């Protein structure tokens, strides 16, 4: 566990330590819940790795993800983004570091796919306004028109998520899987060092599951600015195939953390999932429920 530096509320500095995102003894309890959703979780995430968070329903995976990106404030413990307490950062500062693909999305109006994706560029506005010479400096017109560069970034993100051919269709006319890919494209267009995804493959067909995870893996391994990718998933096979690291959660606790081959073992999985499993080199076979 990396030691966290003292809390600082200043502006973000370049990375001074290997860990991009740190959680230290983090707990969270929903208001009317009997027990905490996340209890005493400590972990440290770096750029250049694909991390899969797995575990049964209600084990606190999504809650942990929302804590990591500052959507929830921990009841105790601390989350540090590049050494800064996440709760002390503005949502704008976080949005320039972490992109989130939530499980539930909605658009109140029938935006086109292109409009949805290019909205990501809005998150860069603050940087331009603050005069830090950020990527979107040209966007700082009062009315917020996107620049040609913004549209180029959005176009590339749409190609990468394979939604470019539906750019002018309404988001309300898409299937669940297509919509999921649009949200991924938007997260890519945010161009943040970290992308957190909550069950991104749940509605995707086989082709797009492999396509998406393969792409995320390549983003984590790119030479310039390797990304930190965190995926909450139920698909243990995809975790084995694509993740560099797996976190196994149960009842709000982090029960195992390590290479997928070491974490996703029958000894670990059987008590957590209450099923009999056999694990091969790149696949998990489920036999039966445990009585």
């Amino acid at each position, binding site marked *: 566990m990396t030691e966290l530096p003292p809390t600082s509320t200043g502006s973000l500095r370049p990375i001074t330590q290997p860990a991009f995102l740190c959680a230290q003894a983090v707990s969270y309890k929903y208001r009317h819940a009997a027990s905490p959703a996340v209890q005493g979780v400590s972990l440290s995430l770096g750029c250049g790795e694909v991390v899969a968070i797995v575990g049964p329903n209600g084990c606190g995976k999504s809650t942990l993800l929302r804590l990591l990106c500052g959507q929830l404030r921990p009841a105790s413990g601390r989350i540090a983004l590049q050494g800064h307490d996440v709760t002390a950062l*503005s*949502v704008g500062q976080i949005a320039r570091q972490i992109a989130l693909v*939530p499980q539930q*999305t*909605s*658009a*109140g109006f029938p935006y*086109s796919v292109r409009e949805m994706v290019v*909205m990501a560029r809005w998150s860069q506005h603050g940087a331009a306004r603050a005069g830090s010479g950020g990527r979107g400096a040209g966007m700082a017109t009062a*009315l917020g028109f996107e620049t040609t560069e913004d549209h180029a970034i959005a176009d590339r993100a749409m190609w990468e998520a394979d939604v470019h051919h539906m750019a002018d269709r309404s988001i309300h006319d898409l299937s669940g899987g297509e919509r999921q890919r649009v949200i991924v494209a938007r997260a890519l267009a945010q161009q943040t060092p970290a992308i957190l995804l909550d069950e991104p493959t749940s509605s995707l067909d086989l082709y797009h599951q492999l396509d998406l995870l393969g792409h995320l893996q390549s983003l984590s391994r790119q030479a310039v600015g390797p990304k930190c990718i965190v995926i909450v998933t139920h698909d243990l096979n995809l975790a084995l195939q694509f993740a560099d690291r797996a976190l196994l959660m149960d009842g709000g606790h982090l029960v195992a953390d390590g290479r997928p081959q070491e974490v996703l073992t029958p000894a670990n999985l059987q008590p957590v999932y209450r099923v009999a499993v056999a694990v091969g080199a790149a696949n998990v076979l489920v036999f039966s429920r445990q009585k």
Partner: protein
Amino acid sequence: MIQLAAGRLTWPTYLRYWAVGLGATGLVMAICLMIGVDPLHPERTAFAWPAQSVLELRLTRVGSAALVGAALAASGVLLQALLRNPLAEPYVLGISTGSSVAVLVWVLFGMSVFGAVEHGHIPAWLESVFAYGEVLPAVIGALLASVAVFTIAGVTSGATLEPLTLLLVGVVISAFNGALIVLLNSIAPHGNRPDIINFLIGYIDSISPTTLLVAGGVFVASWVAGLLAAPSLNIAALSDTEATSLGLRLARMRTLCFVLASIMTASAIALARSIAFVGLICPHICRVLFGSDHRQLLVTAPFCGAIFLMLADALVQILRGIFPVTVPVGVITALAGGPFFLILLMQRRTTLHD
């Protein structure tokens, strides 16, 4: 679905929206200026460019209609984005009627208080505030009504406001305000009482040019602020989680929009009382024609509202020539808007059940 514009919003497209909006509004305004009371036969409707003496009166009337329509439509755009619901508008949410209550209180009681102390007993600045007429009480009433609606909805649905709860609370507040208007009117001294039917349904009549100018100034100021906030409105209409993860301070954005929408509504109420459904119909038409980007919607919808209400008022003038009565313009918008609201509601039902 026919879409007149799609793709990227750039300066030329944006300016084209303004040019077309201004042009169409100007054209309709010119036509509407030609429709009005025949000065020689007051019971008849005349169709001709009015004489200089009549022109100012007509200009105030048509100008008021345009302003009221624009303000209600702009307010509707803001409220719909904030509630992520195309059914929201100031009348449905009870903001219009709340503002009307305050105006009625002013008309019934405030003006007589002001009249009593008028002769040099109050400072000049206060006198000029009073001279603004109904704009100030309208703004106060609209803000109070929004605060009431959002506090009650907040208490019942938790920290994040449920759009459906808000609509329901708005309906209740609206009914409450309607009753309050009738009650206040029946306990007030006889001499001050306005025509209560007109008051409840919205009308455009005998508006002083000063009030029009003040209300116009108030609306334009809040409109400009709204135009600057428009890119954030696009983000605000996504889910809470998405909006926050894209860096939007949702609470601040909501407060700003509520204040702006209230002020816009108030500028309409000060002139014409609570006119229904303009804030619903116009944003919807513009969304179908030009797309959902709020940066263009906040330009096109107000122009559409102005045109819609000027035409509704022209219809009132034409009807007056046929029947010997003046129908309040609110009747026309409610008759057109009610079914429109129901159709939208039913369409939403079917998409929800898919």
